[in-house]
């Protein structure tokens, strides 16, 4: 395999890795934000219930 072919393959790997990293990073961001929102929602609901008692 020539040097050009190796460079091509290396950068192809970088390209696909970058795309996956960005997408997986975004999914992690979504999941962590969902958890935070759900936690806050539960906390507020219990606060409202406590105050109404």
């Amino acid at each position: 395999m020539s040097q050009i072919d190796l460079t091509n393959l290396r950068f192809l790997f970088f390209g696909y890795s970058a795309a996956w990293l960005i997408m997986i990073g975004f999914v992690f961001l979504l999941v962590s934000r969902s958890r935070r929102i759900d936690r806050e929602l539960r906390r507020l609901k219990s606060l409202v219930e406590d105050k109404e008692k």
Partner: protein
Amino acid sequence: MPRKTVYTLGILGTLYLLYNFYQIFLVVPVDALQGNIFRIIFIHVPAAFTAFSFYGVAVVASIAFLVTKNFRWDSMAVSAVEVGTMFTLVNLATGSIWGRVEWGIWWAWDARMTSQLMCFLLYLGYLLMRPAIAEPQQRGVMSAVLAIFAAADIPIVFMAIRLHNVRTQHPGPVLETGTLAKVYYGPFFGDYLAFLLLATAMMLVRLHQESSHREIDSLRRELHAI
């Protein structure tokens, strides 16, 4: 949130993407001129198509919000913009890596690349602006106006490689001119469809988060009133 729908779309999108990767790396022939790096096109271009599809959704939702003042449209717009911006980043990153191999440079300030970067920055500005406006109605209106304004950049990105008097480093349109061989169409459009499925799943999750946000706001107001 229709959890089942999100999981179904996510799993279908991922499986289809993996099938396309099998096609890309093991079935379709290598490009005679560019070699293996050419295979980056199967992510680079479908990511841009997906981003523009979602910016289109954001524009329609923004217009609907301006007309109806229904916050569901505002939620849809911000969800679509967020997913679209992520795919624009995928497009820019893969394009830069491809350019490094083909042109020997990471970035060229030509019409196509600069207008695409502008598009990314405009929608990033949209996402950064929203938390800075506390009043929901004002936030919705300003966001909708910015989403529509930013979409004016999309035809510029599209035309940047089609105008004869614009010099560009970027190659011309491969689909209209037939320079992309038919054998590549399967994984090319397949990746676009897989990205659309995944992006729709992500947008549904964001929509649910926005509706939870509205619920949190109303609970806070309720707590304040008690």
